[in-house]
């Protein structure tokens, strides 16, 4: 084939002869390198177009009227005055969208706008589309809603005690309508093994709710074109599920609905189910024939919530004299807020996900999720398992203390190992937890610090594991969890179509790295079109840390098909076997003679001539033999588990109770780091977020049901001055299922931050902080209580050199 002119430029950018020879020595060309993101410069130059940056001709703006009551019946809504207000084009109320929705198909309990009842302050009741936000806001004031106020419950105890005042109608006649889900599972003989244990740690833990606080508020735009097709742009991390729910609630043919997910300004689980604004912009667009946008205020974001459940957790953990865990008995109350959301899954996760990285002879959990009249809780980074992880890891610290075993050593004695099953029957393949422990132990100088730092300073350790994607989709089906479609241009450009949601974690980049690795094209030949339901094959979305493993495997699957065609076509021309042809560095070349080569675009052209237009689909579905057969045994199962260990070093001010976290060492087994820069970014961002929950964040409510602090000033998230030094230590266990061995990195590394800090506080000042967050008044009080016990002779002074006096008690 004649060398076309454009190839000169491509050859100039392709790998040199020497680089090609080096390439032969390496296992991977792209994977594992510290590369740029595909969207990095677009973001750092301010050019990435987020949802609120989109403005369509003739666009209207809408606002949602929200309930001022935490629990009330709606006895009437009159919008007539509001409709006459200047600039108003349309108003919708609940009766305009009388179909329930919910992220879990068997628990659809929400209306786009409330019809009969409001269940928290902030529940939406009407939406106004007007020429601008001001006009829409003014019209909201003119809507007259008659409420019949009902008694409300802000804590699960109250709701549980009053089944006669249900927040939701009971699912069965004699059931308590305030219970959203109850799960009890037992593996092994818990009671007997507890009885036989050498030591038992028993404590009650309370995890305060926290919220995602992505810096980008939720935003959606609806557009209904003259052909009757609905398009919704949304800050969603689950475009596929949104696609389905929009069609259901608006009673449209799902094939005539399109969801587009622009770049997202952070999500962390807070955008992983449909919200009222998406239905409202769609319905208002259908009524007005004009594009309609809703941008939540920051206050609305706090009320939309779906964040971390508050959990009250009672734990009994027994160990033998060698520190081997014999029994774990957990009893948990989850404060669910006003609706179901992912509640069923959260309830299972609160128990199912703590059975690694340790062996345990027996395990029982009893979890009850309760409705309350507060914004609904849902999945936040580390869905359902960050709270019990706090409990179990502090329990282990208590056991280590009681048995006088170093807490890292205690964890080593309980290693689960690889290619094994957990006590609740999940199959665990690769497991780098031992290496994680070793990495943080070494990097933190643990052996020189634990119990040896001066009073007020301490170190703590904790471990965790997390799923690389949930094994089953949210709605039961046999289809692939993820799919990718590739299309190759004659120039060498490869387009990747995929439903996966880039939410900042780097999923677009991951796809590009894989295509570049497999097809040998330069990274900037790869174009990603993601998360547009009109063009991309389904991926279920950015939740449960599933994309790298599932979408990555789908992408390898698709690329392999094209790779085979290209190698075959080139080999035919050279008269060699296809496996003698390699694709790398912008070339197709002979592995036995790297001088024999052609630009990759030429190889693509040969393949196109031989096989027709180059394109392929690839998909991934999960293995089905990796969990137990009991009811609920699928929930928490995953093709691969990541493992993490943290050491935190803290300084506690005895006089103020202020906890300063100096540093967190984060070792994370991500299987293989496809790009270490992105993996470290996930590890650091996770550890930061856990740190924030440990010492700062409080998603709490006033008696009236109003949020205590619905602003970024009052709801404290860490600034650069608050955040500790973070050191990432990547551990690669090379998983047999993950793409190139990769597992998740986005959620696992959050978990140990909180218990590691709690355990470090204990090492520093000898007080157990079992209630989050570890704010100064709480820590100060605990220090005072300890001092009083020391004074009374009930306790030895903590970490004091001989001759030093005991601590002063309050008022001294």
């Amino acid at each position, binding site marked *: 084939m004649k060398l076309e002119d454009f190839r000169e430029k491509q050859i100039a950018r392709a790998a040199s002869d020497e680089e090609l020879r080096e390439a032969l020595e390496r296992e991977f060309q792209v994977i594992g390198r*510290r590369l*740029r*993101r595909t*969207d*990095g*410069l*677009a*973001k*750092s*130059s*301010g*050019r*990435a*177009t*987020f949802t*609120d*940056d989109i*403005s369509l001709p003739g666009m209207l703006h809408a606002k949602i009227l929200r309930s001022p009551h935490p629990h009330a019946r709606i006895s009437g809504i009159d919008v007539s005055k509001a409709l006459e207000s*200047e600039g108003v084009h349309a108003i919708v109320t609940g009766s305009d969208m009388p179909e329930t929705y919910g992220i879990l198909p068997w628990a659809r309990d929400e209306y786009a706008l409330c019809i009969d009842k409001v269940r928290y302050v902030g529940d939406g009741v009407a939406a106004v589309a007007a020429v601008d936000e*001001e006009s829409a806001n*003014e019209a909201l004031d003119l809507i007259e809603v008659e409420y019949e106020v009902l008694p409300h419950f802000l804590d699960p105890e109250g709701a549980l005690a009053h089944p006669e005042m249900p927040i939701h109608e009971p699912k069965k006649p004699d059931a308590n309508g305030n219970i959203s889900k109850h799960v009890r599972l037992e593996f092994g003989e818990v009671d007997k093994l507890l009885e036989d244990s050498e030591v038992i740690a028993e404590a009650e833990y309370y995890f305060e709710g926290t919220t*995602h*606080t*992505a*810096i*980008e*508020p939720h935003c959606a735009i609806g557009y209904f074109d003259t052909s009757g097709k609905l398009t919704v742009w949304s800050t969603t991390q689950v475009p596929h599920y949104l696609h389905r729910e929009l069609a259901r609630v608006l009673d449209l043919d799902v094939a005539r609905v399109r969801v587009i997910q622009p*770049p997202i*300004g*952070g*999500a*962390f689980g807070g955008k992983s189910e449909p919200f009222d604004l998406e239905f409202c912009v769609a319905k208002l667009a259908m009524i007005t024939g004009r594009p309609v946008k809703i*941008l939540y*205020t*920051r206050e609305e974001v706090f009320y939309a919530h779906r964040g971390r459940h508050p959990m009250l957790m009672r734990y009994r953990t027994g160990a033998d004299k060698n520190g081997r865990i014999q029994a774990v008995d957990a009893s948990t109350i989850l404060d669910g807020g006003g609706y179901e959301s992912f509640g069923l899954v959260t309830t299972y996760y609160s128990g199912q996900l703590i059975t690694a990285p340790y062996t345990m002879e027996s395990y029982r959990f009893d979890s009850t999720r309760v409705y309350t009249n507060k914004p609904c809780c849902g999945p936040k980074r580390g869905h359902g398992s960050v709270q019990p992880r706090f409990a179990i890891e502090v329990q282990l610290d208590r056991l280590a203390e009681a048995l006088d075993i170093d807490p890292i050593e205690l964890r080593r004695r309980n290693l689960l190992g690889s290619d094994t099953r957990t006590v609740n029957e999940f199959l665990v393949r690769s497991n780098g937890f031992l290496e994680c422990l070793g990495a943080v132990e070494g990097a933190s100088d643990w052996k020189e610090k634990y119990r040896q730092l001066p009073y007020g300073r301490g170190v703590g350790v904790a471990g965790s594991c997390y799923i690389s994607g949930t094994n089953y989709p949210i709605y039961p089906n046999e289809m692939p969890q993820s799919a990718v479609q590739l299309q190759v241009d004659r120039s060498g450009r490869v387009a990747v179509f995929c439903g996966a949601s880039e*939410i*900042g*974690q*780097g999923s677009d980049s991951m796809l590009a790295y894989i295509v570049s690795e497999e097809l040998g094209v330069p990274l900037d030949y790869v174009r990603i079109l993601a998360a547009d339901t009109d063009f991309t094959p389904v991926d279920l979305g950015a939740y449960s840390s599933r994309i790298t493993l599932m979408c990555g495997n789908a992408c390898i699957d698709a690329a392999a098909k094209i790779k085979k065609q290209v190698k075959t076509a080139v080999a035919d021309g050279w008269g060699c076997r296809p496996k003698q042809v390699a694709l790398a560095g912008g070339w197709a070349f002979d592995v036995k003679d790297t001088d024999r080569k052609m630009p990759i675009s030429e190889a693509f052209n040969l393949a196109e001539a031989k096989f027709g237009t180059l394109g392929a689909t690839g998909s991934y579905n999960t293995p089905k033999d990796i969990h137990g057969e009991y009811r609920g045994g699928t929930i928490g199962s995953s093709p691969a588990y990541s493992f993490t260990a943290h050491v935190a070093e803290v300084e506690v001010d005895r006089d103020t109770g202020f906890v300063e976290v100096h540093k967190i060492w984060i070792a994370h087994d991500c299987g293989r780091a496809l790009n270490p*820069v*992105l993996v*470290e*970014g996930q590890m*650091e*961002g*996770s*550890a*930061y*977020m856990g740190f924030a929950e440990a010492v700062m964040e409080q998603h709490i409510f006033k008696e009236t049901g109003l949020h205590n602090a619905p*602003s*970024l*000033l009052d709801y404290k*998230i860490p*600034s*650069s*001055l608050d*955040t500790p*030094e*973070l050191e*990432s230590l990547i551990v690669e266990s090379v998983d047999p299922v993950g793409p190139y061995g990769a597992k998740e990195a986005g959620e696992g590394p959050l978990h140990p931050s909180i218990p590691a800090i709690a355990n470090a506080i204990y090492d520093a000042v000898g007080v157990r902080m079992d209630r989050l967050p570890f704010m100064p008044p709480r820590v100060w009080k605990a220090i005072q209580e300890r001092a009083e016990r020391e004074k009374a002779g009930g306790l030895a002074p903590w970490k004091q050199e001989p001759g030093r006096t005991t601590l002063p008690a309050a008022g001294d």
Partner: protein
Amino acid sequence: MSDTIPQCARGALPPGRTASLDRPGELLIETIRLTVNGDRHELGVPSHYTLLEALRYVLRLTGPKQGCDKGDCGACTVLLDGVPTLSCILPVQEAIGREVTTIEGLAAPDAPHALQDAFDLTGGAQCGFCTSGILMSAAALLAANQSPTRQEIREALAGNLCRCTGYTKIYEAIELAAQALREERSPAELVGS
């Protein structure tokens, strides 16, 4: 000629709506002159507009972001005569006669600013939503201090919340950009990429 030219009232008050106390400035559309990224614009804005609203809604410069609308998060940060400023709480009139620089005006036309390139190389931007504000704070820091310490960087960014990175990669990016600017090399050269 004054930079502020009161133009017109926006028509008669609708029935039932009294003065403008509940919507201060609503009645007035002003024509103002604004210099943004070196361009002089004449634009009509409701007089209650903030600088961020004028930039995003009128000039369509969407680099500065609205994260909280109350001056808490820093995503809207722009430079006003070189000083990092929260454009979401700055009345647009305050920007008249001053040089406004947004993220769109940070780089020369032919190449990204060293900070932008460094952020890309180190992974300083994940979701990218806080990034434009952070870059403006960082640019002001580097304009005043060629070799900031880690602590000086932390202090310069104290008004910009990032929820993705834990800040570590942002510090690395700013240190890399500072070195590149000092040595008049590109960040990519420095990391051997």
